């Protein structure tokens, strides 16, 4: 017998060195660009001290120049240098710090961070960096490379565009969801989609169906909240002829209709508990169910994709247990960097359906509609808005902006301004505001105390008055009849 120490070592899969989570690196993700709108979604990594500017690296660059990247799962592609004419040859110097990235503006297009003019600032996740009328970035932490998909080859579409199911986004969160949808699609098990209203649950259901081997038959889709209580079972399971009344036609029901395909039931949380119990058997027993008024069982080979925006405890626990996959769909709070791409996609759809309504908001190249004219302020405000209904809400805001636009661009009109809230702006300590910053804000925002206070990140106009007094600037510099 060999002594234990001399036994040949075998590598056991569970004893291989574990894959550690990739470290997150701050990135500047482009969300608006005047000259290069087709580059929205590209990300500039800031793993070390770096320079950002237009064109190729320069000998005088104070730090290595980083190029924007297109990040896709397991594939990070470095792109051409920035060609935006309004971005200087050396515009930003970036330096990671313990709790963020120090960003210094060297270019002539002035920088604003979260709406405040800055030459130098430390930025963190979610902060918005504007280069005046040139570009807008959001700071997002991501791994250096997005993890590979479990089922690759299913998601081939142009960078920044909608995929074939209409899901738009290049964020890490949206790619994680695509991965989960692809994996769920390959397994033929029932799926529960969880997410707030407007996160795209129907698109996700279409993706699961479209990626599955049931895709040749049409998806059967129904909102459970629209099923009348008294008829839920008849709608789901169908009924025999002349049941419950003479003259009633035979109906296959949603489950029978979905045989060989996928049944998507939205708002499943609205389904009465009794009906949830009735569904248990068909979800378990190889699709066996009984139509109302029939003694013999029927069979349907279907996959249920259900969706809910309610807490999971609103569903019966044994019903919930039938869903092998539970996929949480992220709202805009978890993928703010996708807002601009989704907005462009919504606009493209509007343009395709009603070119006469929105044609005036687009540039034309070679006689064709090209990029939409969207004011950077609108993107900045949308990035800070606390969305509750996500894409649906963005669509409504877009139509509000279109309907109230007085010019040939889409921007923050009074009507849009009234709807937008400011969720992420950090209020400055008045002590941090220098006299120069105050004077710059006065020059930039005229005499409106509200706008000046907002630009400086002050809590209200009274703090502004204290600052004016501190720096010996008379209150007559602003219009504020109501203050004292």
């Amino acid at each position, binding site marked *: 017998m060999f002594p234990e120490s001399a036994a040949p070592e075998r590598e056991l899969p569970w004893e291989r060195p574990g894959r550690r989570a990739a470290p997150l690196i701050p990135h500047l993700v482009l969300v608006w660009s005047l000259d290069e709108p087709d580059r929205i979604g590209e990300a500039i990594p800031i793993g070390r001290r770096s320079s950002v500017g237009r064109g190729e690296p320069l000998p005088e660059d104070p730090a290595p120049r980083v190029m924007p990247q297109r990040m896709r799962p397991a594939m990070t592609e470095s792109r051409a240098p920035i*060609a935006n004419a*309004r971005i*200087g040859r050396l515009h930003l110097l970036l330096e990671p710090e313990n709790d963020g990235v120090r960003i210094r503006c060297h270019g*002539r297009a002035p920088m604003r961070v979260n709406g405040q003019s800055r030459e130098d600032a430390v930025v963190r996740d979610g902060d918005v960096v504007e280069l005046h*009328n040139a570009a807008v970035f959001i700071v997002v932490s991501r791994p250096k490379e997005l993890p590979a998909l479990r089922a690759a080859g299913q998601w081939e579409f142009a960078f920044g565009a909608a995929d074939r199911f209409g899901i738009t986004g290049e964020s890490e969160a949206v790619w994680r969801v695509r991965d989960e949808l692809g994996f769920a699609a390959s397994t033929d098990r029932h799926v529960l989609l969880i997410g707030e209203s407007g996160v795209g649950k129907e698109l996700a259901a279409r993706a699961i169906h479209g990626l599955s081997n049931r895709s040749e038959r049409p998806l059967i889709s129904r909102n459970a909240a629209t099923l009348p209580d008294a008829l839920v079972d008849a709608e789901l399971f169908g009924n025999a002829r002349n049941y419950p009344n003479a003259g009633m036609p035979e109906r296959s029901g949603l489950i029978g209709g979905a045989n060989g395909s996928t049944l998507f039931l939205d708002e499943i949380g609205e389904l009465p508990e009794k009906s949830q119990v009735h569904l248990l058997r068909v979800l378990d027993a190889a699709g066996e169910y009984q139509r109302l008024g029939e003694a013999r069982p029927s069979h349907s080979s279907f996959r249920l994709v259900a969706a809910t925006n309610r807490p999971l405890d609103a569903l019966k626990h044994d019903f919930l247990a039938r869903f092998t996959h539970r996929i949480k769909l992220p709202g805009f709070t978890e993928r703010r960097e996708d807002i601009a791409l989704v907005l462009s996609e919504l606009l493209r759809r509007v343009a395709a359906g009603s070119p006469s309504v929105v044609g005036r908001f687009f*540039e034309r*190249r070679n006689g064709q509609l*090209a990029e939409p004219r969207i004011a950077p302020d609108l993107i900045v405000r949308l990035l800070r808005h606390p969305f509750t209904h996500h894409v649906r809400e963005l669509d409504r805001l877009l139509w509000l902006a279109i309907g109230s636009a007085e010019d040939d661009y889409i921007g923050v009109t009074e009507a849009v301004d009234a709807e937008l809230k400011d969720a992420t702006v950090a209020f400055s300590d008045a002590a941090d505001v220098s006299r120069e910053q105050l004077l710059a804000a006065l020059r930039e925002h005229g005499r409106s105390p509200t706008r000046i206070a907002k630009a400086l990140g002050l809590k209200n106009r009274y703090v502004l008055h204290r600052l004016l007094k501190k720096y010996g600037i008379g209150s007559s510099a602003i219009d504020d009849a109501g203050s004292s």
Partner: protein
Amino acid sequence: MTIDARVLRETLEHTLAADDSFPKRFYDLLFSRHPEVIPMFHRNSPGAQRKMFAQKVTMIVDHFEDPEWLARELAEVALTHQKYGVRPEMYAWVGDALIDTVREACGAEWTEAAERAWREAYDRIVRSILSTLSQVSSERG
């Protein structure tokens, strides 16, 4: 003759920063002096045209010391211009409007060296474009 690319870049940076509407000013000057060229710009909306112009000018200036890139880019420009019916005398109109716009935007920063650098750079660009055009016409000819 050596063209001072540093002066070109500095004055262009100054122009881009000093006047937010530099491409608009250029087209205003060109169209007011030579209204006959206006119909040549019907394919693109004014905003798209201005963006394309600003990008092209900055890219050419940024790559001015890269003769291969410049030759390739200007050959493409020449073929596009030929397709759109640009006539040789129009290059002087464009050059004057461009240099006047840059000079105006630079204000007190404008020097004789800047004037010389822009004139010489523009001449070199036009010569390159015209040589491509004559090559194309002799090949067809």
